[in-house]
């Protein structure tokens, strides 16, 4: 089954470009602004959107994304409304791949089958279940792929060689390398070390590799662009967009955060071409 994630990453890879993946939490800063925010990300240069499905207990997330989840839920965001927003986005954007990222519980309450069906119908291309490691996917993996959804797995600096192999073997869409031991948006990155790990990982898999958690600046993105197929920007973006109260502001702020990253990634491409 053809899939927007696969084709977009193949296309960019063919051009020697590193993809820019932008994360926002659905419903933040307000449920009615989610669709506008998604368009703003695309306009500002995002190649793939990661749409966070808010959860009350986002255990793997740092304070910025926790608060975005809290704001979204406080304003009445639900999983159903998240999928509705995606469907609306798809009416005017049929090309940008969208990965739904979140925690298992809200999905299980909807029912894995119902979720997979609705997410696929709404136009999702992949699903990243933060709290569902390969060991626990047995049932939901088939359900998701049965609906053409790529299941995106995380790898971290602590992942053992044996599990890396297992995850690479099951990887679809792209593998998401967690660049630091910690939560989203945390700490400072040793980009040299991360780049070395990324190169080692890419040597072991045919699936594209994205890197995220803790990437804040264009310099960091540039330092990783040669070693990864995609760079994920989340907390730094969410923090900015939280202040927006209109589609215009969203567009301006998304541009402010993403444009330098976009430039940095494209410069790396140009230096490769040169």
């Amino acid at each position: 089954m053809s899939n927007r994630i696969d084709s977009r990453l193949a296309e960019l890879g063919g051009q020697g470009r590193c993809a820019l993946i932008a994360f926002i939490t659905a419903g933040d800063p307000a449920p009615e602004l989610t669709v506008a925010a998604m368009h703003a990300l695309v306009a500002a240069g995002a190649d793939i959107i990661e749409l966070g499905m808010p959860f009350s207990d986002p255990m793997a997330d740092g304070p910025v994304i926790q608060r975005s989840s809290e704001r979204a839920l406080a304003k009445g965001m639900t999983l159903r409304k998240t999928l509705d927003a995606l469907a609306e986005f798809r009416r005017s954007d049929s090309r940008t791949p969208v990965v739904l990222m979140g925690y298992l519980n809200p999905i299980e309450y909807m029912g894995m089958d119902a979720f997979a069906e609705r997410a696929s119908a709404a136009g999702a291309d992949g699903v990243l279940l933060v709290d569902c490691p390969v060991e626990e996917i047995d049932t939901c993996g088939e359900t998701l792929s049965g609906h053409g959804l790529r299941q995106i797995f995380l790898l971290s600096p602590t992942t053992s060689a044996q599990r890396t192999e297992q995850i690479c073997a099951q990887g679809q869409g792209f593998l998401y390398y967690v660049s630091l031991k910690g939560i989203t948006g945390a700490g400072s990155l040793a980009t040299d070390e991360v780049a070395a790990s990324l190169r080692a990982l890419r040597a072991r898999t045919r699936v594209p590799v994205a890197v995220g958690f803790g990437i804040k600046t264009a310099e960091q993105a540039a330092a990783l662009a040669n070693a990864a197929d995609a760079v994920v920007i989340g907390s730094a973006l969410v923090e900015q967009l939280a202040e927006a109260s209109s589609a215009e502001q969203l567009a301006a702020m998304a541009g402010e955060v993403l444009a330098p990253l976009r430039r940095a990634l494209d410069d790396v491409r140009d230096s490769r071409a040169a």
Partner: protein
Amino acid sequence: MSIESVSSLDPAVDAAAPEAPSLPDQRGHFGQFGGRFVSETLMAPLAELTDAYEQATADPAFWAEMEADRRDYVGRPSPIYHAQRLSAEIGGAQILLKREDLNHTGAHKINNTIGQALLAKRMGKTRIIAETGAGQHGVASATVAARLGLKCVVYMGAVDVQRQAINVFRMKLLGAEVVPVSSGSKTLKDALNEAMRDWVANVDDTFYIIGTVAGPHPYPKLVRDFNAIVGREAKAQMSERYGKLPDALVACVGGGSNAIGLFHPFIGDREVAIYGVEAAGKGLSSGRHAASLCAGKPGVLHGNRTYLLTNADGQVTETHSISAGLDYPGVGPEHAWLHETGRAKYVGVTDDEALAAFHKLSRCEGIIPALESAHAVAYGMQLAKTMRPDQQVLVNLSGRGDKDVHTVATLEGIEL
């Protein structure tokens, strides 16, 4: 106690007993419950912990050190006390109390922290973190950290920090740093999230002492094994004194560590009825309670699949109980399994019923119970009434009530 008799306390020996359940399986599952639902970064430290635990439990020296600590530091074994005046007043079965309130630090929580701290030491960790609701587990963690000279950080919901000022001060006296957590509902579940986040970032030198039989595998097993001393002692004490096992066991269930500690060694003894008592708060129909087995449904939280209290969207809801230690929206996966298989029955006791039992036991037996344990006492009395005087109900008196006197005074409009 000699090494020979110590080894008979080893859970590995327990597991070999006829009919005793061998759960969880290798992957930490109790039927459909349990498991390891965490982000990738935690998978390696959990595997490391599982290996270290298996090695430790195979080492008689580990159990010997544990046994010495239990005896000399905790003050075990805890007695079984026949509450004769209370039993006579209720007029039914005899009510027996397993006196976990007499342990050092005043509750069963130390059984677990002693064990996990010994494990931390074996693993060469220098820093301990813990989450706490009412502060009992925080105090028990700070206590063992002080004793072993380990740095200790306790995460506590900002709301609980306000509610449990005395325990916060106790932890500080013991040298721990208490970090108020102001995310989410600012209570126990959020403290647990925050402790997990700390652990992810500091796995190299840090050991996370989870305070209940929840969390990702191997925690539900590990915490159970360390608390199962309660049930093993009770079994031996009952056989020795009465020549029979009790007819029923009763224990309160928040996350469920004191309850599983008492229940687990009896699971294979079919003649013993098992009752877990959840906090029904203002009543199960009020929506203001913490009874996840009585009123929730299966889901995934804090690394395991279990029964949860959530809204229709699967968002974990705020719970309520007069007792902070039971104020938790989930429950240990082994309880979910015991509930689903019908081996244990789970019931609810309201704030008012627990408060009445708190007073009753204080006035009738001279024992002020923790508000958590008062839930078990309340149901124990209800149950005893339906039974014959030659029968016995063993209630786990999991903690003492000193920590709750301010709460009770405030509820009754008394200024101390």
